[in-house]
């Protein structure tokens, strides 16, 4: 039972991790916590659903289509909303992202209805057995993709010109501008990348939690917890945070008596508070996390 709980927990945790990546990417460069990320991811995932069901696209093509749609949506949110409101207080910008999310939720409800929709696994076929422990092929794929994306983004930020420009913009917008960085374009790029990756995450999460107007938000809440645990600015940290979260909640749910087992998520949040008291920048976060450079 222990092995299965850990492996299932890792599978669930990788969903939280991958959902957190897009959110952190946007936060890292713009210092805006996108409260509408869950709704935006949901909308992009519905695009994949549309391509799969109405246009009969193969799965990889539909996911790619959703990623492009997500990226366009991200660019649109930045150009259409965030840029116009950039002089507003940060809290107003948070609310603006929430507003965009709610609009998208209403539009999605109008187009696709309120029924829960099934979404195909990226990998079908017999589950993998490791002794007594069983794992879906899809779960393994999600885990691998999550780790890969976090590493690629980590390298992008660390070693590429665009990544350095993103970090510079994040640390001091005015100075970055004076150094010749087009901060507007960097902002748009961050939003596009954040929601492009969000769309990919949505397509990998949807087979497990299904697709409706709220399923992504419920996962996103845990993704935010994972991000906080990992140290909000660290991409690998979010993945580690997500995996930890998945395993801890599974162990709690598996071993605690039924009266308190449903409190597994509450327990995780309590644990996060404890971690934040001991390490305010999270497990792998930068010490400046939370500052606004």
């Amino acid at each position: 039972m222990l092995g299965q709980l850990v492996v299932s927990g890792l599978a669930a945790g990788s969903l939280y991790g991958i959902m957190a990546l897009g959110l952190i990417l946007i936060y890292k460069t713009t210092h805006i916590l996108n409260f509408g990320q869950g709704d935006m991811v949901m909308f992009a995932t519905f695009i994949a659903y549309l391509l799969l069901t109405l246009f009969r696209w193969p799965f990889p093509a539909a996911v790619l289509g959703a990623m492009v749609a997500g990226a366009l949506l991200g660019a649109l949110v930045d150009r259409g909303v965030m840029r116009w409101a950039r002089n507003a207080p940060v809290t107003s910008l948070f609310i603006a992202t929430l507003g965009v999310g709610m609009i998208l939720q209403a539009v999605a409800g109008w187009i696709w209805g309120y029924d829960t929709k099934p979404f195909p696994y990226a990998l079908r076929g017999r589950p993998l057995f490791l002794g007594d422990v069983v794992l879906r092929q899809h779960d393994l794929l999600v885990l691998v993709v999550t780790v890969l994306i976090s590493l690629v983004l980590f390298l992008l930020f660390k070693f590429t010109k665009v990544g350095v420009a993103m970090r510079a913009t994040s640390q001091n917008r005015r100075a970055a501008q004076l150094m010749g960085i087009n901060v507007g374009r960097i902002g748009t790029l961050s939003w596009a990348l954040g929601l492009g990756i969000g769309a990919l995450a949505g397509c990998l999460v949807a087979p497990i939690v299904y697709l409706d107007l709220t399923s992504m938000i419920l996962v996103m809440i845990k993704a935010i917890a994972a991000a906080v645990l990992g140290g909000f600015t660290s991409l690998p940290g979010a993945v580690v945070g997500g995996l930890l979260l998945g395993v801890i909640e599974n162990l709690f749910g598996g071993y605690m008596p039924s009266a308190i087992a449903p409190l597994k998520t509450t327990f995780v949040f309590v644990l996060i508070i404890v971690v934040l008291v001991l390490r305010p920048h999270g497990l792998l976060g930068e010490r400046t996390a939370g500052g606004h450079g």
Partner: protein
Amino acid sequence: MKRVLILAVAWGMLAAGALGQTPGVTDTTIKLGSFIAQSGPVAVIGIPVMKGAQAWYSYVNDVLGGIHGRKIQFLALDDAFNPANTVAVVKRLVEQENIFALVNPLGTIGMAAVWNYILQNKVPVVSPHMNWLTLASPTVSHVFALQPNNESFGRAAAQYAVLETKAKRIGIAVVEDAMGTELLNFALDELKYWGLQPVVVVKYPGTETNFSAYAQVLRQSKAEAVLLFSYLADAAKLIVECDLLGYKPQFIGINTITLQLFDLAGKAAEGVVFPGFGTDPQDPTSPAAAKMREIYARYYPGEVMNAYAMIAFVGAQLVTKALQDAGPNLTREAFIAALNKVKDWNADGMIPPITYTPDDHYGIKTLWMNQLKTVDGVRTAVFLKEWNWAANR
């Protein structure tokens, strides 16, 4: 001449006064009110409920010429499934809109919020779409339940596990909310009646996304039958996780389970038993369903009528039957008296028969147990048998 005129005016005023005593009724109209979520997460149920009821009321007005010459005004307001909204909506319906009756309202939490108000104002409630036991137990003179309540679902599921699947080890998976708790308590009581206790009770919060640990706990318990007191998507997630572990107990659900479970859970849904209380409106063999689809399509062309729309349609039919039976001099008393005389009414076979008496406003008591099965390559719900838990004791 002058005297005749004065008499005529006085008679007119008296008549208007007499009519005015019945809220919501004029010579040409009957105003019916409702709260039905049209927005928010429960809109998935609310929208078809609204359309199902509206289709029948419109048909009565447009084709059948109304009820004794009066057209029905169906005023369904959106409470977004938020009880705070329900209170405002119902007060508006009763105090400002002056409705004759509250018909086809949706959702226990909303009704619970306005329950005392309903009891005080004595506004008739007919065809409520909820499983709330309080509607029918104890009997309230002006409230008529339609759908089976959680007592029926909870006891029937437990009884089915004991008597039909002959399971000695019974597990329960239950969502932690008012519905789940009510179902759980009745199931526990029913198991006790048959000398059993569940080997495991797995409770999960309504916001859960990860069911793997719960599936583990169920498998560990070696339960042969698992009562599934869950909403559809949660039920699908849980049985998929159980299936992944190679654990295949007999799942027995409640009325939240529909054929859609096959879409969500795939082959893992095979064999799940669940209770129904209505004919599938898409049933190709039922003339009543065909007629219903035809009327629905008249107002919502191209839209597929689902089970929620069906029960609302039937509920609306019950309302208009009682309005018709109450006669041309419509009062709330006549309406309630007509409802108390409903006997073995089944909407042409669309639902199990309903009988109301002044002491019994329970509504549907008999459940139709179904099982999800693949027949000739087609995933369908196969009718197993009728189930009346009270009669089985």
